[in-house]
């Protein structure tokens, strides 16, 4: 596990062809690690019949609504589960 709760991370802003679980509205956005879940099989390879190994760490990352949508109130949060290889250190 590279990141710990409280760490600031940026979601990689890269395109991906094929199945992946990183929503477009979060790409390039900066958030905070809220929870370290565990390691899970990689859906990007598992979707095509592979075993998804090695397992990848999965984090709950919280974003401030106002950073995602100009209209959102500042204090509200959007939290999403993101795999480690989509996260960059933003400290």
């Amino acid at each position, binding site marked *: 596990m590279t990141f710990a709760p409280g760490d600031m991370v940026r979601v990689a802003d890269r395109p991906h062809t094929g199945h992946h679980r990183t929503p477009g*509205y979060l790409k390039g956005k900066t958030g905070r690690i809220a929870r370290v879940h565990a390691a*899970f099989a990689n859906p990007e390879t598992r979707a095509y019949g592979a075993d998804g190994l090695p397992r990848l760490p*999965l984090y709950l990352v919280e974003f401030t609504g106002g950073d995602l*949508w100009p209209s959102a109130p500042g*204090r*509200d949060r*959007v939290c999403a589960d993101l795999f480690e290889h989509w996260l960059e250190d933003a400290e």
Partner: protein
Amino acid sequence: MSEHEHDHPHEPITNGDEPPAAARARAVEQLLIEKGVIRCEDVRERIDWLVSRSPGDGARLVARAWVDPDFKQRLLADARSAALELGLDPGPSPVVVAVENTDDVHHMVVCTLCSCYPRALLGPPPAWYKSLPYRSRAVSDPRAVLDEFGVELGDDVELRVLDSTADIRYLVMPRRPAGTEGMNEDELAALITRDAMIGVAQPAAPAPIG
């Protein structure tokens, strides 16, 4: 799907105005069966299991947590173990995480990418949960969505929208309403609705009789 030799054509059993995606799913299912990847019974057993689940299971978990603070801590720490403790089937996977609504924080759940949902504990998701308007507006304008569901959040309440993008399924533990102090666990469970465990409703105490 019929299992006999297909030496004659017959019409599939559909509801008449089947959307293209359903026809595609049926064709893929037929291919998987013909190639021996899955059995017809596998599909039926899975569907039977899914429709046998109901929000009543999730409600039992929440009601126990309302009356038993130690159980609540176990539910928040490991919802799967807590479900097993009550004799509930949390399903083979994915992992269920319970989150607690309080006077200060309100959680609501969405899956913006598809329709991920704690099916083992709540049953099949409602149609609106899978709709594009809910999936997009729950993250972009969540307070307006809650308002449409009849949930008024004070400005001092932090709203946390959980987008189930991967292997975790979220179950919301709503706040126990005032006026339910004398109610037992079964009576409380009857107040806890599916929508409350998605985070788009708040349970209310029953209206006084007479």
